[in-house]
């Protein structure tokens, strides 16, 4: 009996330490924070954001911080945002949401109601955005996010939420298009056997949907031999990978965040697995993964991303890449590009609205259609997709020389890519 009591107490304390919680359901919209948030003459426009600067998503959170800071610095150098004929500087209040949903939501509430920020930029990772966007919606604060690509986030009919990440379903669809091109070139068998493994989140479900939809549309071309989900931040994938091995798949497609990608790929290599085509969704080309696993164990991995520095050799993309290199001494990845563009989209909307009135800025975001550094070169938030931007993904593949050239779509490709993986025949 005493053991039982002690166990319950123990579990309560440890679970509190783990800080896991589910997203809050949206309540009936209250009056919200004051609709107008005017700044005094010359006063900085106050914009709030949280990012996962500690916890499981901290590394990517750090990348997003770099993009936000670059955008704020760049616009302040120009004198700020032009509002009603007057240039106002922009001030970022950035807090650490510790990679947990509850903290992301409560800090958004603090930013709005205690720090009195006028607008919000989103955090990173779909599950955090999903929880945090509820607070912005309840308080009627424009919330522009570039960290959550799950379709589910934008299916809730929120009016104050604007997303820069194109739907994850298109991400896996882009990988499948490249796979299809390899099949057409007879580099992989027809039908090709696929094992699809996805993290058990909205992000993972969209990824899986993209693969399934493509396979169904190309009947006879693909057989899904294995379709399994796994827990986020997993430690042991041995049994799951054993199942992958027994599926006899030619193509191994995973949707995972960076820590899970590194853990799973290490176990994949030690189990002696090798597939003709392999992808971890949006992960694959990160330097940390090559450092943690060794460059020889990440080669030929495909990744489908929202941006790639090779996209633009001129215009906005080049300007961004040059400025980023000048400030940080290295090339940007898609994380920094998307966060930079997220902040820029909000700045442009404020300028377009010509006012700091939240309603007017929301309307300006809803009708925004501007040149962008994102693939396709244009950014808008169509109402038909729940104000989630739609644009093509770029697929890149790690090469033995350490580069990750774009292999898809054809018009942007800088390399044809390699299939099947030559390491499998060694």
């Amino acid at each position, binding site marked *: 009996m005493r053991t039982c009591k002690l166990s319950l107490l123990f579990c309560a304390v*440890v679970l509190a330490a*783990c800080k896991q919680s589910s997203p809050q359901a949206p309540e009936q919209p209250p009056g919200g924070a004051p609709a107008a948030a005017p700044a005094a003459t010359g006063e900085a426009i106050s914009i709030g954001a949280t990012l996962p600067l500690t916890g499981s998503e901290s590394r990517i959170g750090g990348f997003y911080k770099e993009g936000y800071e670059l955008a704020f610095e760049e616009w302040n150098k120009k004198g700020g945002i032009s509002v009603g004929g007057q240039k106002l500087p922009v001030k970022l209040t950035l807090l650490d949401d510790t990679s947990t949903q509850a903290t992301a939501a409560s800090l958004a509430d603090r930013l709005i109601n205690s720090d009195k920020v006028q607008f919000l930029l989103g955090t990173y990772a779909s599950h955090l955005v999903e929880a945090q966007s509820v607070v912005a919606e309840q308080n009627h604060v424009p919330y522009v996010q570039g960290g959550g690509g799950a379709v589910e986030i934008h299916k809730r009919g929120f009016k104050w939420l604007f997303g820069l990440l194109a739907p994850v379903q298109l991400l896996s669809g882009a990988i499948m298009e490249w796979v299809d091109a390899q099949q057409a070139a007879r580099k992989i068998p027809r039908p090709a056997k696929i094992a699809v493994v996805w993290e058990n989140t909205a992000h993972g479900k969209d990824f899986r949907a993209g693969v399934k939809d493509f396979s169904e549309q190309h009947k006879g071309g693909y057989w899904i031999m294995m379709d399994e989900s796994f827990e986020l931040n997993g430690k042991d994938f041995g049994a799951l990978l054993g199942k992958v091995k027994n599926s006899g798949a030619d193509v191994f497609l995973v949707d995972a965040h960076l820590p899970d990608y590194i853990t799973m790929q290490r176990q994949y290599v030690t189990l002696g697995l090798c597939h003709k085509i392999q992808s971890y969704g949006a992960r694959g080309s990160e330097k940390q993964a090559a450092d943690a*696993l060794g460059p020889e164990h990440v080669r030929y991995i495909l990744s489908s991303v929202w941006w790639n520095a090779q996209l633009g050799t001129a215009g906005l993309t080049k300007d961004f890449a040059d400025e980023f290199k000048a400030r940080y001494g290295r090339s940007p990845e898609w994380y920094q590009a998307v966060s930079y563009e997220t902040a820029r989209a909000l700045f442009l909307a404020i300028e377009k609205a010509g006012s700091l009135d939240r309603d007017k800025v929301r309307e300006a975001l809803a009708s925004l259609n501007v040149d962008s550094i994102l693939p396709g070169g244009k950014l808008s938030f169509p109402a038909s997709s729940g104000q989630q931007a739609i644009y093509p993904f770029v697929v890149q593949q790690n090469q033995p020389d350490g580069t990750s050239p774009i292999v898809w779509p054809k018009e942007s490709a800088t390399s044809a890519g390699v299939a099947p993986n030559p390491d499998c025949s060694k």
Partner: protein
Amino acid sequence: MAQALDLAVSAVLLAGLYATMAYGLGLIYGVLRIVNLNHGGMIMAGAYAGWWLHSSYGVDPYLALVPVTLAAFAAGWLMYRLLVRRLPRGAAGGVQSLLLLFGVWLVLRNAAYLLFTGNDQTVRTSYSTHALPLMGAFLSVNRLLVFAGALVTLLVLHILLTRTYLGKAIRAVAQNPDSCTLVGIPVERIYALTFGLGTALAALAGLLGATLFSFNPGFGSTELLKSFVVVVLGGLGSVAGTALAALILAAVEVFAILVLPAYLTSAVGFVLLVLVLVLRPGGLFGQRVLA
């Protein structure tokens, strides 16, 4: 058949890690009747210590086991002398010890954030991804070493507790500290040594875990929960029971993938915990004391 062999190998190797994680927690509970919530913090500290020695001085993580374990033993001994011995003994001290050691864990975790940031770290050696073939399956060299570490730890603990004067004194104190005082056993010293030993075992588990997984200052939370499940399954205070319980938990989790979606397999252990608490509150192998 091949799949069953793969899963069995996976379960045995995973059991080694679970057992190593749980020994320290079980030992401290068995003797001091304290659930050491800072076990998770020491697992994290052990991982960082091994990583720091490897990345700064190139020390192989398995060679680093010796200095890291000794340092953790000293830290545990000090923690007992400065903090834990001030707690009330028996049931009255249960809540206080949970809160105190939880506080220590939070301090350690935040210190790690300050020192090492929240970025994930990995220990990569020349053999990190090496594997040995066995009847069509591949055995990770790292996992084999972790498993060997678990066996050696079990053996050393067994010899220590059954063949040495110190071990006999630890078992005696676990059974009846008041009588031990009467026959001249220095109970406080035994408590301090046991707490140090349990802390050292936590750090050892952390360092072994770091050779397999990436980690950040949050590392240790899941490991603490798993350790707790193993210790309760095995019967709080039983070292051999801990090892067997680790094997059972690992086997249940690994083979569950044959009938359950992969994301549910880790929950199977907690279902097992609830069942054991309801049906056999003393654990699968009884409430024996360090036998």
